[in-house]
């Protein structure tokens, strides 16, 4: 693998439970200072992968390297990583500050120094005045920050976070995302976090490792995954998309719907051989509704029937049927009733997947 200089390298780790392959030869890396998200549905093996990196599970095969050292058989305590557990795992019988100071206590740091360091760790997450509270007296969001402070105060070489936002309610979640990215970036330590929520991953991660059924589907920046998905599965998982069969023709795809054929520009064209079959990934923002037939067939347009309309604040989201197979969602500010016929047009280059 490249970049042997530093950071975490996960090299083809595999783990099965009772004959079930939970993690199947997963490889990726986390470079110094980088925030990486392990994203996948439940059962994709993301949590097991994280626990193997943390040292709570042993892989059946494969290696975990950190800064060039083999960590595979090293106990969790010896790795010097900090972990934020899904339900935070805060010690309920200790005060907030004692929780944060626990790792320092275990490292033999003297009482006054560890209280001072734990205190400033709490300051950094905005809980400066709440050190003497008991853990249960805090809200979910505050508990999450205590867990983060506890993991960060030991100055870990790598921060691991298991679904750090999943226990927060939706409104809190959005604001906490930005906060979390800022805190993680400030801490300078690289971080690996697990989430099933692509919005969390998009908002926080520099890079995403997308997992499904224990395998890596694709690794890349959020934009990479969105604009250049490597497979239908990735396209379906990331963002809202409709796949429409197409044949590649140079930098464009030839798409036929309901007898009408158009050539559509592609964002990247390397995944399908020229002349080969695949599918274009159509997302709502790449499609436009054209009223009173102005689009016509000549302007990359198709005819569609409005199936239903949903109000979405900034406008409406329409579900359109192009033919008996192809149904797409399109956003528009215009008010159109169900059953009407409209024209649709693809307005920007789209990805194509094999």
């Amino acid at each position, binding site marked *: 693998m490249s970049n042997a200089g530093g950071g975490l390298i996960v090299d083809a780790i595999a783990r099965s439970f009772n004959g079930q392959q939970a993690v199947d030869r997963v490889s990726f890396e986390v470079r110094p200072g980088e925030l990486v998200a392990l994203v996948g549905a439940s059962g994709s093996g993301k949590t097991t992968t994280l626990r193997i990196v943390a040292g*709570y599970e042993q892989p059946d095969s494969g290696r975990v390297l950190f800064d060039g050292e083999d960590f595979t058989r090293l106990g*969790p305590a010896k790795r010097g990583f900090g*972990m934020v*557990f899904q*339900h935070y795992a*805060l*010690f309920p*019988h200790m005060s907030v500050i004692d929780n944060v100071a626990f790792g320092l206590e*275990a490292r033999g740091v003297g009482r006054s120094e560890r209280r001072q360091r734990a205190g400033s760790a709490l300051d950094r997450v905005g809980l400066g005045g709440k050190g003497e509270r*008991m853990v249960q007296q805090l809200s979910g969001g505050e508990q999450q920050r205590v867990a983060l402070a506890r993991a960060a105060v030991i100055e870990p070489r790598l921060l691991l976070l298991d679904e750090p936002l999943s226990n927060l309610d939706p409104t809190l979640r959005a604001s906490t995302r930005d906060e979390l990215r800022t805190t993680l970036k400030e801490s300078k330590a690289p971080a690996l976090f697990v989430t099933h929520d692509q919005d969390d991953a998009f908002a926080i991660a520099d890079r995403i490792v997308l997992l499904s059924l224990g395998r890596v589907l694709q690794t890349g920046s959020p934009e990479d995954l969105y604009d250049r998905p490597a497979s239908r599965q990735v396209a379906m998982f990331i963002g809202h998309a409709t796949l429409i069969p197409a044949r590649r023709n140079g930098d464009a795809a030839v798409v036929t719907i309901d007898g009408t054929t158009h050539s559509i520009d592609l964002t990247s064209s390397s995944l399908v051989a020229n002349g080969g079959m695949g599918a274009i990934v159509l997302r709502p923002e790449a499609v436009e509704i054209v009223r009173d037939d102005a689009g016509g067939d000549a302007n990359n347009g198709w005819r569609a029937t409005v199936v239903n309309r949903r109000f979405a604040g900034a406008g409406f989201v329409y579900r359109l049927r192009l033919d008996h197979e192809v149904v797409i969602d399109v956003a528009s500010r215009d008010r159109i009733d169900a059953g009407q016929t409209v024209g649709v047009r693809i307005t920007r280059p789209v990805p194509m997947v094999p």
Partner: protein
Amino acid sequence: MTVTGWFGGRSRSERLATLAALPLLLVLGWTVVYPNIAVIAGSFGHWREFAESPSDVEALKNSIIIAVASVAASLALGVPLAFLLTRFDFPGRTLLRAAALLPAALPPLVGVISFLFLYGDTGVITRVTQIVLGLKDVPWHLNGIGAIIFIHAYTMYVYVYLFVSAGLERYESSLDEAAIGLGAGTFRRLTRVTLPLLTPAIAGSALLVFMSALGSFSAPYVFGGGVRVLSTQILNSKLNDAIGLAYVETTVLAISAVAGLMLFRWLEGKRAYVAAGKGGARRRPVHSRLARIGLACAAGLIVLILVLPHLMIVLVSFAKDGAWTTQVLPPEYTTHNYAGLFTTNQLWTPIRNSIVMSVLATAANVVFCVAGAYLIVTRKFSGRRLLEILVALPWAIPGTAVALGLLATFNTNDIAVGKILLVGTFWILPLAYFVRDIPLVSQAVEGSLRQMDPSLEPAARGLGASWWMAVRRVVLPAARPGIVAGALLACVTAVGEFVASIVLYTHGNRPISIEILAQLRSYAFGTASAYSALLIGLVLIMALTARIAESRMQ
């Protein structure tokens, strides 16, 4: 206070609930509260006697020493065993897990007898040790405080084991992982995280052991030797017609128990947090070959120690009475002991008595406690808290003290002061069993009812069901697991009851436990053991029935 004020007065249903609770409160007042008052009243004028009696002061001291030491011994056995069985996988684990509960199947007196057969001066283990070591004298004497603590540890560690295991099953495993990840070693993790979080389970079971050991009667009575404890002093004083002194001793015992209860509650209250999580700790397989062999051997040895008392009872129950003298094992075997129980009138009567009395008491328990639990769980009314406290109260009072209380209340016909004569009649024992088992059955039924969605009954009423139909079709089915479990438990305790029985029995209603003691005194070990085996069998059948009933209902 006006009448509406008395009845809480807020709504019709509250008044109805208070009205319904009144008969229950009346019964509890008469059979639980009043007896204690009568005992305290009867103790006046005899306190100087108590304070000046060296044997009584010593008995108080011994009772407390035994209770505290039993707690320590039970914790020392139960906590490590719970950890071993919930955290590790090794050969023999399943067997050990099953055997760990066996002491619970021994009625108090039966456990004591089996220990006598095993570890007494002429016991099997004692003799084998003597022969193997080539000693001239027996290697130990099974008497004194040490012997009492020994058997308490054997029978009472089960509470600790059960509570701590349950705590560990629910224990959020990520807490330990967090501690490990933060760099805590095994010792720091145990002392700073795991054990503090198990405090509620440990304190709860320690309290149970403390209460059982403080009031324990059988062990000190049978092989205490010269050791005096409060519970045996009470019986002695009563038999010596020093009833006033017996009341003082009873009061002291009850006060010690309540003081212990309050002390533990206070300790528990200081740590008010919930450590329950989703559990999820996987048992770690033990990989080292040496450790596996060691653990398997240890498990085998512990299982043997746990089963031996049961095996011994069964073995001796087939021994010919009078033939077992100086041999290690009984030399001659027969089935006469069992046949005798069912054919000799003299021997059958206690069995019939025990069954009839425990069924009567249990039936009363079920009716009374279901009504009480229903009101406590589903209704809000003035007097609810009082009812809740009173149904739990007999638990805090040692069996001997309960018996003395009933003795003080039902010893004469004088309705004017609330006394009727039941002592000396058949009915005093069913009453005693009823009182002793109220907390047990109430708690079981309350537990089931609390799991019921509280809106179910109103929903049924809203659909047009009458109160009785809602209770019959919705509430009682929800309470059924608790009713079944509580009733079986009450029945088992009542059938083997000894402590209150020995204070209150008459020749006509003598129960199995009293007959076991009588047979033992006349050296009819075989017959005593046949009775004991019968009791163990009953306990096992009931436990099995409860388990089957429980699994059917799920």
